[in-house]
């Protein structure tokens, strides 16, 4: 039994890491800019498609028709040869194999640009407008982004294989001195967990220990005063939005081997991430992270047959149920401040 609980806990951490990472970006935007960003799921999706794009570029092929051979349905066979992969010589195959982690290189600048363009182009005009309008305009943007992706990449999921060396499961139990094959867990999921932890830690350190972060935190607390001190807070907020977009994008890239991305993947995460953010308390970074892990772990345990036997269907509603209970007991979520988003 202990091994089952341990595994389920591990799985909860793994799911929680994904939730926390998405909720972190959402909170970053809300906490600094005061904007409720319904396009955050779309940014996650765009990040995932950076990986798709990168892989499609690497695997571009030349097609030649060979009339001497026939396809199974009797037409001349199309012979395909790698094009881009060949440019890199021996490294080509390695690069294709590691395309998902390698695509981080292009994801960071692309997402930064998208984020900054979005903030300068549209979001900044909505700082002083009601939250309902922020929700609506970002929701509209999310629709546009996902429909554009659908128009170019089609409606179906596009699988992104993980590097061959990182497939399969690691025997964690053996590392902890247990017998072999008792606690095994997929390597990529462990990597995703570590990756999330690093990013979350990085964002916290950035805000806590750099001057830039200090100014941003000051701006979060009192924007006007910081402005009066002659600090250009607007520019810093733009960068923060870009940073949030990068965090969302990276979360998307690394998630692709676990779930083949399609245009709709962001919307599926959006509702969930909002529940996480609200449970954590609007605008609270530690709240978002804590709520992410809490909901991940609870969801994992609620899916156990023993629990489902007690309360049928609990695995389908646990997240929402927890959200309702927490909001009724703690009016502003786990770590929410007074007066945020209540009117």
């Amino acid at each position, binding site marked *: 039994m202990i091994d089952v609980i341990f595994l389920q806990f591990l799985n909860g951490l793994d799911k929680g890491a994904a939730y926390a990472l998405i909720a972190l970006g959402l909170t970053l935007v809300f906490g600094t800019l005061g904007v409720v960003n319904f396009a955050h799921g779309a940014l996650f999706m765009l990040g995932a498609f950076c990986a798709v794009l990168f892989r499609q570029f690497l695997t571009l092929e030349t097609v030649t028709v060979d009339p001497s051979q026939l396809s*199974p349905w009797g037409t001349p066979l199309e012979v395909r040869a790698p094009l881009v992969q060949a440019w890199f010589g021996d490294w080509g195959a390695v690069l294709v194999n590691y395309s998902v982690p390698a695509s981080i290189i292009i994801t960071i600048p692309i997402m930064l640009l998208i984020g900054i363009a979005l903030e300068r182009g549209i979001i900044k005009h909505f700082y002083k407008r009601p939250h309902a309008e922020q929700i609506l305009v970002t929701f509209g943007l999310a629709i546009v982004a996902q429909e554009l992706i659908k128009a170019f990449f089609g409606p*179906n*999921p596009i699988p992104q*294989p993980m590097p061959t060396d990182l497939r399969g499961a690691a025997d964690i139990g053996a590392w902890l001195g247990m017998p072999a094959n008792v606690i095994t867990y997929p390597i990529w999921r462990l990597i995703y967990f570590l990756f999330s932890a690093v990013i979350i830690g990085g964002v916290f350190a950035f805000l806590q220990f750099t001057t830039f972060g200090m100014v941003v935190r000051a701006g979060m607390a009192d924007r006007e005063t910081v402005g009066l001190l002659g600090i250009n807070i607007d520019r810093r907020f733009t960068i923060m939005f870009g940073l949030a977009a990068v965090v969302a994008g990276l979360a998307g890239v690394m998630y692709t081997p676990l779930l083949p991305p399609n245009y709709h993947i962001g919307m599926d995460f959006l509702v969930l991430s909002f529940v996480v953010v609200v449970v954590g308390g609007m605008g609270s970074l530690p709240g978002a992270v804590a709520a992410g892990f809490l909901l991940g772990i609870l*969801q994992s345990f609620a899916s*156990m047959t023993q629990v489902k036997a007690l309360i049928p269907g609990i695995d389908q509603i646990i997240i929402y149920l927890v959200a309702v209970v927490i909001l009724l007991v703690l009016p502003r979520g786990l770590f929410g401040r007074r007066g945020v988003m209540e009117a």
Partner: protein
Amino acid sequence: MTLLKRGPSRRRVLQTGLAGIIATGVAPAIFTRGAWAQEFCNNPTGDTVTFGLNLPLTGAYAEEGADEQKAYELAVQHLNGEGDGGLLPMLKPSALKGNGILGKKVAFVTSDSQTKADVARAGATRMIERDGAIMVTGGSSSAEAIAVQGLCQEMGVIFMAGLTHSNDTTGKDKRRYGFRHFFNAYQSGVGLAPVLAQEYGTDRRAYHLTADYTWGWTQEESIKNATEALGWQTVQAVRTPLGAADFSQYLTPILNSGADVLILNHYGTDMVNSLTQAVQFGMRDRQANGKDFQIVTPLISELMAKGAGESVKGIFGTSNWHWNLQDAGTQAFTKSFGAKYGSPPSQAAHTAYVQALLYADAVERAGTFYPPAVIAALEGFEFDGMGNGPTLYRAEDHQCIKNVLVVQGNESPTSEFDVLNIVQEIPREDVAYDPAMFGGDLGPAEPVPMCA
């Protein structure tokens, strides 16, 4: 302000633009229908007859929907005497002439059902009421099929189901106006069990993950019955929400549950995800009870196998049809489809194509589009040449009784399409069953309801 004019002028552009489009495209359909000279719904009075294609072009089963659309376009071409004729000369007996249906050219309209029953039904209504569809066909989920065939019964329009695998479609929810060529979950279980016994033995402990809705339940029940009859034990049957995407929380409890076979009652992207993730959890490298751990996917298609890639190798499942069959019908269809689209047809495409042909043939034999006459022509129709061997459209439940294929993920594919191998063709006598087994009531064919 400049924006003051932008709003209305944009709307006006849209309106006039649409009025133009509609004047050219939609209006004729309305006017021809205004003739009211029909004694049944959408009696074609002009020189064309319209099929309503209700296809999931987005959502979990979108890939099947897109393939079905290709097949329908091909079928319409062939019915109109264009292209290479495909399966038209193969159908035996056949009344098809290759000049449309009863001399009328075949046209079609499409609607995206989004893999949702509600939307599918709205789309079917739209195609019947606005576009004058004489017959509705398509769909890639049992929920859609059952919802739409109920509607068609109310409207008096024949529904030729596409890919739908639930026992209920021709069982408790069967309808007089609905017909299914595809096989069902019960037949999957009966067909698959002997192969499983032969490959994995009769002493196995199975763990089911089941999509938590009616199709999943009927398949779980059918497979459970079939495997338990072999002597297998069922450790646990766990229901997962449809579209769960991340199945990891359901996979972890399997690892140390004492089970040595995982049966995935999922379909579409759900199956691709759960199978891939199960393999990532190392399930295929494990040992349990001194045996190699195995995964079984009772219903699998080429499209899903392609999506799952490496993970599907060596895994057993069942299919309605496969393009690698060696009979003349299959080869003709594969050739025709491959030449046009550059890829072999999936089982969804095949069933869609065959359904379109069977409807056209039934109308030709009946000599009229009058639905009760067409229904009578389809009921009890025995035919061959469509790639599934001799086939009977059973009158009692409108289920086609034909061979079922047991397939296995190809260990060494020679091309990206060569993902499944045919292990065995189960003869139709073995998968036939009592039509009364799944209950239901077809309802009457007459009086023919009138649609608006």
